[in-house]
């Protein structure tokens, strides 16, 4: 494998890992809008350990996953007791706080960043993805996976069935943060330099788009989303200058036509055009859902 292919494969692998990590929280219907913050936490933790303390990358990755999980559990504990709007606001703000703190922390180089990390290999990335996929494979077939689905489809019904909705959601959020943290650690040791601005809102939105494009119903939908969105700018060079517009339009069009994502079954039609026509003709269509 030449260096270029290797770089592309590693980037792709990290994108898949990010998408899978995000899928776990999206599977409970809880969308975070600041997952790049967990990536940053993982990346900086691992980078400090490998550069300043000369730990091995594998151990540092474990620690960075743990740190991100603790942060995720904390944020989840604050936000998941409240509604989805509060979750959106809190995760937004959290990502911003992490960025500000890293910007003003001289030990990790402040705004100019931290450098000197290396060591991410294709094997390491593949191993992480393998572990996560095995976990998700068994999760999808377990009671916990079912409870995730129940919470996503109807939270009130799930609560009425005796599920501890908040606890399960917080746990899913923490696991999701952990995987995102590990992905962040891997990406830090691939790009060689990390700055706080890499982990801003655009990165968070990109992670969301991976999962939303693929659909939250099956975890491999997230993989499809990640592959498509990572390869698109590589295959179509000209997209590079317009990628923000492309992503923005993708969000808008997708939400109108296929809010369930590319992959995923729905009781509605293949494309939501019927609903569009119905909405346009009726005066009091989808005002809100009670």
């Amino acid at each position, binding site marked *: 494998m030449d260096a270029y292919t290797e770089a592309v494969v590693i980037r792709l692998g990290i994108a898949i890992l990010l998408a899978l990590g995000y899928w776990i929280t999206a599977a409970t*219907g809880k*969308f975070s*809008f600041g997952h790049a913050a967990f990536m940053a936490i993982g990346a900086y933790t691992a980078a400090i350990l490998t550069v300043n303390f000369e730990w091995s990358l594998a151990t540092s990755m474990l620690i960075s996953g743990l740190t991100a999980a603790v942060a995720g559990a904390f944020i989840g504990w*604050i*936000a998941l*007791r*409240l*509604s*989805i*709007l*509060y979750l*959106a*606001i*809190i995760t*937004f*703000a959290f990502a*911003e*706080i992490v960025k*500000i*703190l890293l*910007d*003003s922390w001289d030990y990790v180089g402040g705004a100019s960043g931290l450098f000197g990390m290396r060591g991410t290999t294709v094997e390491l990335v593949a191993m992480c993805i393998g572990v996560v996929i095995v976990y998700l494979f068994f999760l999808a077939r377990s009671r916990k996976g079912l409870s995730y689905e129940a919470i996503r489809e109807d939270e009130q019904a799930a609560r009425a069935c005796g599920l501890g909705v908040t606890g399960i959601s917080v746990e899913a959020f923490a696991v999701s943060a952990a995987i995102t943290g590990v992905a962040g650690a891997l990406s830090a040791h691939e790009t060689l330099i990390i700055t706080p601005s890499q982990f801003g*809102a655009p990165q968070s*939105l990109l992670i*969301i788009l991976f999962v*939303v494009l693929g659909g939250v119903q099956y975890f491999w939908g997230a993989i499809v989303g990640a592959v498509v969105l990572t390869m698109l700018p590589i295959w179509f060079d000209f997209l590079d200058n*317009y990628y*923000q*517009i492309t*992503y*923005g*339009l*993708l*969000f*808008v069009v997708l*939400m*109108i036509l296929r*809010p*369930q994502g590319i992959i995923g079954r729905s009781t*509605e039609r293949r494309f*939501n055009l019927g*609903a*569009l026509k119905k*909405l*346009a003709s009726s*005066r*009091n*269509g*989808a*005002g*809100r*859902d*009670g």
Partner: protein
Amino acid sequence: MLIQQLVNGLLLGTTFALIALSFNLVVGALDRLNFALGETAMVSAICGALFLSQLDVPFVLAFLAALVVGALIAGITFLLSFRFVSADYHTAPILSSLGVGLVLTSLVTRVLGSDQRRVPTVLKDVRIEVGPLRIVGDQLIILVVAALMTVLLYIFLNRTAWGMAIRGVSDDSDMTGLLGVPVQRVILLTFVISGTLAGASGLLTGLSFHTVSPFTGFETTLTALMVIVLGGLGNITGGVVAALMIGVIETLTVAYLSATYRDLIVFLLVGITLVARPQGLFTRNTGVVGRV
């Protein structure tokens, strides 16, 4: 010195109040957030600034243009991100309006360039001095216009039929619909008004700093979110009070501590509020928290 800073903070707060009102109106109408409003404010401000500096029109005209641009964008956002999106997907409007915001920011940077735009001083010779306190003409404009718009909104919401319809839809849209109110048109109207307020806040913020940058959209959204969480989601009066509070706190932090702590202190305050009083500082019932 302290009094001067307090007044500056209140002035900053009035622009926050406008954008917070704009977010709160949408939360009231649909129990959803329009995340593109920050970018709407930015685009309006850039348009207003272009009118002022390139065409040299009077400030009133540029201000009206900013309002119209804001209203238009908010109307389009409503159609794209809320009207045509299935209501079964709770996160869909959030994601879609974020997408609209992304498109707006990159369109502006593509079409008009990514450099900052200057907003020229409007009232050069006016200046009020009361003891140590000094207020320049532009600050006066901001204060008067923001206060005027807030009062007009209150009158509109409380004294007119359409205003009552907006409050009705915000209270119970099904019931209001059954009583013969065209719910979707009322929601569109709410979005247009919220866009107008966002446009006003954008240009007034630009006037207070004398520059407008195309990258401030996200920041504006974030500030507005902090304000409405502190005041209580959907609580219009609480939003105004919280906006003034945050304006004062930010100004005092910059003046007496350091600019880097500005956002951090606000975030910390909001975080404590969320843990201790999730319904916001000025909301009595928790009905909204349960609903949205």
